[in-house]
């Protein structure tokens, strides 16, 4: 497996995640797509770390993972808050500041 192939896979996953982020109606669906994007970045970082023999790529991947988990935790708390105030999790209808 060469670096070029991994880069193609990572780029494809990133674009898929971007499409999901832009088109999903449900907030949880958007969070899932953001997960895919972060995951593709991790794949590319690890691939560069492997093929340049530099450990900083893996260190960065660890940081990206932790940041993604923090983002998911806060995002899901916001989703539950949104559901509690609006009784739904549709992103298009959540356009008011007060309910």
């Amino acid at each position, binding site marked *: 497996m060469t670096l070029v192939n991994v880069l193609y896979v990572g780029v494809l996953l990133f674009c898929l995640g971007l499409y999901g982020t832009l088109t999903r109606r449900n907030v949880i669906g958007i969070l899932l797509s953001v997960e895919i994007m972060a995951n593709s970045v991790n794949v590319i970082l690890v691939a560069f770390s492997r093929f340049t023999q530099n450990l900083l790529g893996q260190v960065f991947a660890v940081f990206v993972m932790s940041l993604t988990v923090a983002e998911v935790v*806060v995002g899901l708390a916001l989703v539950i808050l949104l559901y509690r105030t609006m009784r739904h999790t549709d992103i298009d209808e959540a356009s008011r500041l007060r309910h």
Partner: protein
Amino acid sequence: MLELVGIAAVVGVLVAAAVSVVFGTNLVHSVLLLAVMLFTTAVLFVILDAPFLAGIQVMLYAGGVVTLMLFAIMLTRRSGGVAVNNETIKGRRLPAAILCSGLFALLAWSIHQTTDFPNGGDNVLATRQLGITLFTEQALSFEVLGVLLLAATIGAIVLARKRDHGEPEPAGAFQRPARGRKEATR
């Protein structure tokens, strides 16, 4: 040859799972397919000689994040057992598809144009070395990350806590009857 087939199968499962997550209509299925995708990424990490990251991936994502997502779906599921709505927004499909395929074409073209990719030997980077780097060279970043995780935890607890719609807790004992009366009329 056999190795190549195995890697191709792993990549195929990875991309297929990602496609089903993005285009699926059932949100619960999407989350479970995301778990498949994250496990397959862990396998890819093993192929890329990063076993420590593969372990973290399985524990953190497939164990933690997917469970959290399922919890959130079950908590926000509408009463009556209706399947969770996970449609895409219709008027936004075409522009998003154009944008994403354009971005993919641009990135793939630039990867295609590049010729001198690094291929620095087959030394496996040891997990021990990763730990040493993380705790000496990158120690400050690591500590900042710990503070960030603490802040995220506290923030999530504060946000998702049940609250009395902005009313502060009663300070003295004499306020308690008033609050009780209000609750009774509610």
